[in-house]
């Protein structure tokens, strides 16, 4: 027997992490500040890792000269076309796999066989098939985006409540309406989560494809700067890629808030 005398101990806190934007921004600023401090104090060599101020100067020079826009516009065009193609085909195949037995088994076998292949390894093959120009780069991106989109969409469609589909059928909705008004909106949260993954994959593949046979694009610029050990410009290119990733993630966040506002 054990006697107790006092307040009931509280045991229910924690496990509820909150997003604090200010803390996130301050953390980044703090990290860059420390980096600049290390460079200014001479602890970090400029060739080893250029100081943030030097990278900023390189970025400014690239912007003023129009060089940045020349590379960025080429990359953005490839990214937009490649990602859009991979996404549209991925969603279409994912919905078909999720809904129809005749498509499911063959398509999933193909996806399982091809998804693990590093897409970068296929770039030379795509160059042979689609030429050294834009075709091979866009196909590389699309191919890389396609498979995760299929997998995310199939997961989303598999989780659509069958009760909602039966409801649609019981009201005599045609197949296009069942898919467009019930299946796709219900699978949208999973598809949008997939966008976060595929946009990152697309940026990685974009740079890789531009490093093989391109004279324009952020990937080509980074490769060229690296070959010259021009680390200021190399890091400037990497900062641009990082900002590009942040912008895309932000845009997806806006899209999620807008399209999924019903979740409250």
């Amino acid at each position: 027997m054990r006697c107790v005398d006092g307040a009931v101990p509280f045991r229910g806190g924690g496990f509820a992490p909150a997003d604090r934007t200010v803390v996130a921004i301050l953390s980044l600023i703090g990290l860059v500040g420390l980096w600049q401090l290390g460079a200014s104090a001479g602890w970090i060599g400029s060739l080893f890792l250029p100081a943030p101020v030097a990278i900023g100067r390189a970025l400014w020079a690239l912007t003023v000269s129009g060089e940045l826009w020349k590379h960025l516009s080429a990359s953005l065009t490839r990214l937009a076309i490649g990602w859009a193609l991979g996404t549209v085909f991925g969603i279409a195949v994912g919905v078909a796999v999720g809904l129809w037995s005749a498509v499911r088994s063959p398509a999933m076998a193909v996806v399982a066989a091809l998804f693990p292949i590093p897409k970068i390894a296929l770039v030379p093959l795509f160059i042979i098939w689609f030429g050294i120009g834009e075709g091979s780069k866009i196909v590389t991106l699309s191919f890389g985006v396609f498979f995760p989109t299929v997998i995310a969409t199939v997961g989303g469609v598999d989780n659509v409540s069958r009760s909602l589909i039966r409801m649609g059928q019981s009201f005599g909705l045609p197949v296009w309406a069942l898919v467009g008004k019930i299946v796709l909106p219900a699978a949208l949260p999973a598809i949008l989560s997939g966008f976060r993954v595929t946009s990152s994959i697309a940026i990685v593949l974009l740079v890789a494809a531009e490093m093989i046979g391109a004279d324009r694009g952020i990937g080509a610029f980074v490769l060229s700067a690296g070959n010259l050990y021009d680390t200021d410009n190399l890091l400037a290119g990497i900062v641009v890629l990082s900002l590009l990733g942040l912008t895309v993630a932000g845009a997806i966040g806006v899209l999620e808030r807008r399209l999924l506002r019903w979740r409250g």
Partner: protein
Amino acid sequence: MNAGLRLTLAGVGHAYGGLTVLDGIDLVAEAGEVTVLVGPSGCGKSTLLGIMGGLLRPTTGSVTQQGEIAEDCLNPLTYVFQDFALLPWRTVAGNVALVLEGRLPAAERRARVEQVLTLVGLADFAGAWPNQLSGGMRQRLGIARALATRPACLLLDEPLSALDAQTRELLLDEFAGLIATTTLYVTHTLREAVRLGHQIVVLSRRPGRIRHIVRIDRPLAERRSDDPDLIAIEAALWQMIRDDAAAAARERLDAVR
């Protein structure tokens, strides 16, 4: 509202794989009447409703429909679901509009949405999301969506079972006022059966066969939950079901063990 369809079931049976859940069902659901299906858990009530509504194919037998369908009827056989089956990404008005889109011009569609939402008392919530509604309001929305198609036959699958007792009681009275066509109603609750049913079909435990059919001819508007006659019929129904319900419960326990 339509007078309704007459549905005739002849020798209807259904099996899921090797498991027979319904056997030899011969039944007529008369036009304009409420036919309630009751019976112990697992006796195939919802399966029978699915067959009558064309959502399930019977393994044996057939279901035929007779009657005239009004010009403004958009979906002769219309379901109301136990779990409401509302689209959470559409507003209250959007959920009703779903079943009218592509079938009515926009102005007529808006008018019909407004009309049925007013009928079920949800006109002020047209712009709300389903997750902002109470359980009772969600099922009223399910009813509004069904009524918007001006059905010739309503099929309700335990429409009140997901609701609390007070809301159930209130909605039961509302249903009695809203139902004006052939209605097939599945329930576990005998109180609902005697409050709404013109014809109460008592099914046996699995495989479900018709054990009794009880008729109540008193108009729905004249029925009250505390009516001694209805209470007596409810007690009689329970006598018919009790042994089967107990045996069905024992079977489920044995299956778990």
